[in-house]
Structure formats: structure tokens, C-alpha cells
């Protein structure tokens, strides 16, 4: 057992399981051709459960494998578990999406699992080359997923827009990375951060580093749809099948944040032996401006939407802005708050999209108008939706409130008071459009049409709703998870 390659394989067991599951889903679909999608779905769920099992096995361990390209650490573990959990929910939504066609679903699951593999590599490497590869695997899978409704013009348009924007931003990002490589002679973030060469170069002339940082940030900003790189988001989110939208809005976005946190954490968050710590302040200002623009633009654009799906798209842009408040702090505590907020975002946004999946099945439409009076027809899921809306607005006693509270605390602590005030006022704006959904559900006359029950989906969304409120009252588990995950980023970036 002294073969280093075999040892390395053990530490990427979760990735291997995911790959096997993806391939199995593809083959299984051919074998049971013409059958319901449900079986392939269960297969995927089983694969995800096995992946999660291996991820828990790696809990708390730290290793660098495959020539040091893949880092197994708690930080990556956080985002991997996040992805697995989100993907499991998405698979459940695919299985319960009544509008989903029943053939070719094997590819659907295959692509979703493939995207997850991309995320896994993206968040667990400090090697920029591997990060870009993961990034691309995620993107390519997402392009196809967005256009999965081949006959649907909107879906096709979404896919096309996604490809063009995605290709461009990857190009920009890779160019930035090449500049960074030129400056340091290495492609590994951990080595870059401690490179004496870099420090010498930067103190002589900081401009190349500035350009490289801006270009790389642009690539990340595209993935997490920060303004002004958000233009693809509403169209893609609207055109893509709803479960895919859910995946893009939750898992894919969180992965972008994961990679961004690792990048910034390694290069700029000040600590001993870090060459660029002193340049963190300039990055802070840039990120804070991005945050302010993103949340304001997302919220104001969401005000005018008549489609719930599009509204949730803009709302997810706004939430990316809130997360950026924590990241802009450029401190470990700020990052921890951002990660807590991502966990909060998981519950409330998955829940809101689950509600959307249900109502698209019932009414065949995603407009807010079509929800009128449905609160009286399907009271449980609608009540739970109100809990998600409350959490998205950031009102207690929900997980969204506590997340915002933590972000505000870190913002104030780092002297970003102006940004915190903007974020607070943004919450008020967001209330207005979130309430439109609650209003349509409960304040309008009961609808004529009956809502066909979907007990499994409802039950599942209700669990998410209970978690949204429950973790808002009992915050310790999520908070300590987010905190613990960052302790290892500190070690990784310091080494």
C-alpha cells in the first residue's frame, strides 16, 4: 500500500463515486428505456448518498493528493457536502416535476452529476489550472442543462446566451491567470501567496497584479452573477427547466463562491507569510462596490417582474450581493459569515424553488398572477412558502435573518458601515416583491382551479421550511460548521 497513486485515489473517493454514478445513470437509462424517470432518479440519489458517506469519512482530514493538485480539507468538504445536499434536492424536484418529459432523462441526471463533479474539483484545489477545468466542466454541463428543453425557444435562447457569456468570461479569467503565472512562475495559489518573486514584482509595480486580480474576479463574478456580469442570469434562469434553475441558483453559485473564497483567502487575507495581505484593502473596496451595485440592482429589477421564476432569479442576484458583504470584509470572520449565509441561502432558496416546481405543475405557468388565491387551495405549502419569503427578506426568527445579522456585524466591524446601511435598506426593497407572492397567495380571492396534491413534494418542502425556521432559532450547528470549515482554509493558505 505504499503506492502514492493508490493512496491518492482513496482521497478522491467521493469524486470517483460521483463519476461512476453519472455513468451508471446514463447506461441505466438505456437499459430501462421507456420506463419512468423515477428509477434513474433513485439511482442518482443512492449515488449521492454514497458520495456523502465518503465525504463524511473525510471530515476533518487534510491532505494534498495527485501531485498536490487536489486539496482535501474542511473548506472543500463544506462546499462538496453543500453540493451533494443541493443536488439531492434538485433530483427530487426533477422526479416530481410534472412538466418534465419522460424520455432522455438519463442524460439529465448524467449532466447534473457531471456538473457536480466539476464543482467538486473547483472547490477542492488551490491549483488554478484544475480550478479552471472544474469551472469548465460545471459550465459545459450547465449549458446543456439550460437548453434541455430542445423544442422550447426560451430554453434554447437561454442556453445560447449562457454559452456566449460563459465562454467570454472564462477567456477573461484564464487571461488573468496567465498574467498571475507570469508574475510568479507558479499556478498554485498556496505557492503564489508566499512567492518572494511576487512581492518583489508587486512592490515595484502593482499594476500587473491589479489587472490580473480584476480579470480573475470578473470570471468569478460571472459565475456568481454579480453586477455588471449578471446579464445572462435572468434569461437563463427563466428559460432553463425549473430544477436546473434551482441547481444553477444554489449549487453552481455556491461553488463559484467557494472558489472565490479560496482564491481571495489564499492571496489576500492577511496572515503571516502572506505577501499580498497589505493589498487586501484595495480589493475590499472593489468587492464592496460590487456588493452594493449587485444587491441594489438585483432588488430593484426584481420589483418589476411578473414571473416568479424571473423574480427569484433577480432575488438570487441580490443575495449574491449580500454574501459579498461578508467577503468584502476580507477577514476570516467575514468569510465565515458569508458561508453561513450560503447555508441559509440553501434552505430558503431550495424551498422557494420547490414551491415553484409544485405550482408550475399545478397551474402550468410561472407568473405571480397565476398564484392568486392558491394559498387557500394548498395551504400547507403556501404557508411554508411564506416562511421562505420571510427568511429571504431577512426577518427573524429564520435562518436568513441570522445570516444577515452575521454579515452586518462583520461589515460594521470592518468599517463598511455604509455598505451595511445599503444592505439594510435593500432588505426593505426586497420585502416589497417578496410580499407580492404572499399577497397573491393569501390576499386574493380563492382561485377556481383546484390544486392537485403532491404529498411527497409538499412534505419535502415543508422539511426545508422547518429547517429555515429551526436553524434560525437554534443557530449553533450551522454556524460552527461554517466556522470550522474556515479554520482549515487558514491553514491551507498559510502553508
Amino acid at each position, binding site marked *: 500500500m505504499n503506492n502514492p497513486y493508490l493512496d491518492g485515489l482513496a482521497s478522491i473517493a467521493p469524486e470517483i463515486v460521483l463519476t461512476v454514478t453519472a455513468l451508471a445513470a446514463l447506461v441505466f437509462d438505456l437499459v430501462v428505456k421507456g420506463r419512468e424517470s423515477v428509477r434513474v432518479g433513485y439511482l442518482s440519489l443512492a449515488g449521492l448518498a454514497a458520495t456523502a458517506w465518503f465525504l463524511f469519512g473525510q471530515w476533518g482530514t487534510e491532505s494534498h493528493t495527485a501531485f498536490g493538485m487536489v486539496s482535501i480539507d474542511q473548506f472543500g468538504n463544506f462546499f462538496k457536502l453543500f453540493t451533494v445536499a443541493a443536488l439531492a434536492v434538485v433530483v427530487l424536484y426533477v422526479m416530481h416535476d410534472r412538466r418534465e418529459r419522460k424520455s432522455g432523462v438519463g442524460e439529465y441526471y448524467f449532466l447534473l452529476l457531471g456538473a457536480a463533479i466539476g464543482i467538486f474539483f473547483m472547490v477542492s484545489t488551490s491549483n488554478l489550472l484544475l480550478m479552471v477545468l472544474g469551472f469548465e466542466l460545471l459550465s459545459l454541463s450547465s449549458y446543456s442543462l439550460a437548453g434541455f428543453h430542445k423544442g422550447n425557444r426560451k430554453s434554447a435562447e437561454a442556453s445560447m446566451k449562457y454559452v456566449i457569456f460563459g465562454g467570454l468570461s472564462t477567456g477573461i479569467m484564464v487571461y488573468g491567470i496567465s498574467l498571475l503565472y507570469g508574475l510568479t512562475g507558479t499556478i498554485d495559489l498556496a505557492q503564489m501567496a508566499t512567492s518572494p518573486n511576487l512581492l518583489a514584482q508587486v512592490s515595484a509595480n502593482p499594476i500587473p497584479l491589479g489587472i490580473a486580480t480584476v480579470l480573475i474576479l470578473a470570471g468569478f463574478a460571472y459565475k456568481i452573477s454579480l453586477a455588471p456580469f449578471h446579464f445572462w442570469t435572468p434569461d437563463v434562469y427563466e428559460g432553463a427547466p425549473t430544477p436546473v434553475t434551482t441547481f444553477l441558483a444554489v449549487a453552481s453559485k455556491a461553488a463559484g463562491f467557494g472558489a472565490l473564497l479560496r482564491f481571495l483567502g489564499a492571496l489576500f487575507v492577511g496572515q503571516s507569510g502572506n505577501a499580498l495581505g497589505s493589498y487586501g484593502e484595495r480589493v475590499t473596496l472593489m468587492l464592496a462596490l460590487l456588493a452594493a451595485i449587485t444587491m441594489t440592482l438585483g432588488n430593484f429589477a426584481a420589483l418589476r417582474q411578473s414571473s416568479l421564476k424571473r423574480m427569484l432569479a433577480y432575488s438570487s442576484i441580490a443575495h449574491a450581493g449580500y454574501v459579498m458583504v461578508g467577503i468584502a470584509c476580507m477577514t476570516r470572520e467575514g468569510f465565515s459569515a458569508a458561508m453561513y449565509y450560503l447555508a441559509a441561502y440553501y434552505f430558503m432558496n431550495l424551498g422557494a424553488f420547490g414551491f415553484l416546481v409544485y405550482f408550475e405543475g399545478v397551474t402550468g405557468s410561472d407568473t405571480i398572477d397565476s398564484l392568486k388565491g392558491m394559498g387557500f387551495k394548498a395551504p400547507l405549502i403556501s404557508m411554508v412558502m411564506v416562511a421562505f419569503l420571510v427568511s429571504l427578506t431577512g426577518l427573524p426568527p429564520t435562518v436568513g435573518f441570522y445570516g444577515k*445579522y452575521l454579515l*452586518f456585524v462583520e461589515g460594521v466591524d470592518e468599517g463598511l458601515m455604509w455598505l451595511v446601511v445599503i444592505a439594510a435598506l435593500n432588505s426593505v426593497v426586497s420585502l416589497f416583491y417578496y410580499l407580492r407572492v404572499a399577497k397573491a397567495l*393569501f390576499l386574493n380571492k380563492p382561485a377556481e382551479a383546484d390544486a392537485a396534491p403532491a404529498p411527497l413534494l409538499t412534505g419535502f418542502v415543508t422539511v426545508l421550511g422547518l429547517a429555515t425556521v429551526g436553524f434560525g432559532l437554534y443557530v449553533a450547528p450551522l454556524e460552527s460548521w461554517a466556522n470550522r470549515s474556515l479554520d482549515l482554509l487558514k491553514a491551507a493558505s498559510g502553508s
Partner: protein
Amino acid sequence: MQSQILTWITFLPLIGMAVILLLPKTSMNAIKGVSLAATFLAMVLGTWLYFYGFEQKSLAEIEAARATGDILGAQFVQRIDWIDSIKAQYYVGIDGLSVALVWLTTVLLFVGVIASFGMEKAGKAYYALLLMLEVGILGVFVSLDLFLFYVFWEVMLLPMYFLIGIWGGPRREYAAIKFFLYTLAGSVLMLVAIVALRLDSGTFSIPQLTELAVSGKLLGMSLPANGVLLGMDFTTWVFWFLFVGFAIKVPVWPFHTWLPDAHVEAPTPISVILAGILLKLGGYGMLRACFPLAPDAFHESAFILGVLGVISIVYGAFVALGQSDFKKMVAYSSVSHMGYVLLGMAAFTVWGMEGAVLQMFNHGTSSAALFLIVGVIYDRAHHRDLNGFGGLSQLMPRYWALTTLGFFAALGLPGLAGFVSEAMTLVGSFQAADTRFQVLVLISTLGIVFTAAFLLYAMQRVFLGKKNAKYEGIEEINFREVFCQAPFLFLCVLFGILPYLLLDWMHPSVQNLINILKVQG
């Protein structure tokens, strides 16, 4: 049990709510029974607390408590760690400022449930939301931890939104969303201030924060840039952020515009609760979590607050005079009456401050009575146009008698509760160290004249004059309606004659508050 009594009072309605949610939609009698039982039990506990449980400590005893870290001398304290990482605690307790308001809340909600029995549309969700609202209100009054305070503060919003939005009048959607947006706009600013206070002091405990603030140690010195925001120093902006949050709730002119809309559209029991107790949260919040946390800024801006109070008094009464909608008139009268609260507090004298707290309680009873009175006529005539009635005194003599009592209590007739508290705030303001307050008092007497005018004018139009033939067979006020109004009118008379029944409870706490704030100023 004794030390947990506040928890029981606060969460009894929550238990009731859980039971209601489990009951089937069709068993309305059971739902009503459970809501009645939950609010009744809370009222029994609240009454016990006020008359027996709460110990009237002397000022010396309260001051002695300061050595043990409790500057407020709170009673029935329960303190449990809640969120360790940010040191938020489940920390509840009451003092002379809150005990009467807790009692009033439990009474009002009990009556609110009975008054709701007349609403045919009110179903399972309605009673569940009503009970959730009670949890939020009581929670705010008993919280001594700023984080907990904020959580309860926000918990109130959603039930109120739905109660107005689903069961309200024709423009209910607009009114409900306006209420929510206004309140939230205020409370997010509060949150920013709370965050800043927490970072500077390392605690959420209100007594501890007060202690730090009055000894000049809460100046934002541990924050980046010393907590300066847009050129304003820490205490100034903290004060204004908190103040605006509470002022929207009071509501103080110019933040009052949500109130007439919300009142007009809300169903009667909700109007009663809104005017009777929700508005008091604003005034109470200022005394508990605004002035004591930024005493310097409070003293600096006292005159501005006084001016805002006087504008509210005069403007509210003047606009009420011009209303033809009965309910809107009463709503504007609330703006006017709550103006006295602000004026009295700003004057910063014992009489002014005590008058303000007393006025909060008395406005709670008299405005509740007025909204119930409006509800009675609206249920029968289905409109509230003051000009559309006439001569009702001959058709509904008992109703007229009760209305007269309610009106006189509202306009401050000596012998009734409103007179005592208004007189105290005015006298107290006249004694203020800042002599400009004497001018304010003079101006605010205009409000008294206008108040008398609009109430008497309304009385004349509705009850006196020629009988309106349309309402020949109108039904006299029934037993349930009398039963709802009786407690409030009784309290108006009782505290008009024996105001010390309230004053003795609050006096030591108010005196203590003034003493600790004075040291700084």
C-alpha cells in the same frame, strides 16, 4: 414557576396557536374556545402579575440593584443562554415601565378575541395569527436582551400584515403592505444600530448597555473610525436610527401616514389591538432601548423631539377635525394623543415622563373603546360616514351613553383617565429645564381645543339632530359588544379617579430612569 411566569404569559398564546393549527378547519367552536382560553389564561396571569406578583420596590431598592448589574431593578428575571457565539440570551424581566403594558396587552387581546366572534369570515388562520401577534407583543415588553427584543419586534409584523391584508376593508392590500414596509424600514435601521451597539459593548443585555451608556462608555470607540458614519458621531446616529424605528411605530409626524390607512382597512378587533397596544410599543421602545442607550444624543435632540410631539398633537387633531370617516377620525386622534407621549418624554421631568407612560396606558384603553364604538355602528350600517347618520341617540340610547363616556375620556374631561395623563405631560413639559418647552406647551393646548372640537362635532352629527329615517329599526348595542367595551370604559373611569393605581407602580422606575439619564446630561 414564579421566575418563569413571564415565559408562561408570553408563550401561552403560542401553545394556543399550535393547538388551533392542529384542529380541523370546520370545528370553529373549538378554535374559538382555544383562543379564548389561551388569551384568558394569559390575562389571568397578567392581572395576577400586576396586582399581586409585581413588587412595588422603592427607588432605593432599585438603585441598590444597580450594584448587582441590573440598573433597571427588573423583577421575575429569567436568563438563559441562547446563541452562545454572539452572546444573545433569552433574558426577560419586567419593571415599572413594562408591567402595566403587559397587563394591558393581555386584557386587550382577550377582548380582541371576543370582539372577533362577531366576524363571520374569521376562521382558523385568523385566530392563529391573532395569538401569534400576542406572542410578539408580550415578547417585546418583557425582553431585556436587545437581540431578543428585535426578534419579537419583527415577529409581530407578519401576523399584522395578514390580519389587515386578508380580513380588512376594500383597500386592505395597500394598507397592509404600507404598514409592513414602513415598520420594516424603521426596524432595519434599528438592526444596524443594534449591531453597532453590540460590537462596541460586547453585550446585548439592555441593563448592561444602559449602564455602559450612562457612564459614558458606549461611544463607539472600539469600532473602526470610532463609529462615525457620514460625519455623525456614534451616539448621534445610533440614537436617530433607533428613534426613527420607534417613531414609525408610535407614529410620530411625519412617519404617521401608514396609520390612517391601516386603521381604516383593518377589521375592528385588529384596529383595537393596533391602537390599543401596538402604538405603545414605539413609546415603550424609546424609553427602554433608545434614550437610555444614547443619553447624550437624547439630551441634545430633546427639543426636536418635543417639536415633533407638538406637531403630532396639533396636526393629528386638526386633520381629525376634517374627516368624515368615523374610523379615520379616531385614527388621527391616535396620532394626536400619542404626541403627548413624545412631548412628555422629551421634556425629561418626572411629571412629563410619568405622564407619558400614563398616557400610553390611558390611550390604550380609550382608543380601544373608541374603535369598538366605531365597530358597533359599522356592523349595523356598513358605512362609517359621519354625515350619514343623525339622531341615533333616540334609537340607540345605551350605545349613545357608552359613546359619550368614551368620547369624554378621549377628550380629556377631568375625572376620566385621559385628563390626568395629558395634564401631567403638559405640566411636566412646562417645568422642563429648557424653557422653550413652555412655548411648545402653549402651542399644544391648541390640540386640546381641536380634540374637543372634532369629538363633539362627530357626536353632534351622529347622535344628535334629526332622526335619520333610514336607521329606524337599527339594533341596539348587544351584550357581547357591551361586554367588550365595559372593561375599557371601566378602566378609563377607574384611572381617572384613582390614577395612583398606575402611578405608584411606575413611579420608582421612572424616577430611576430620570436619575440615571441625568447623571450623564
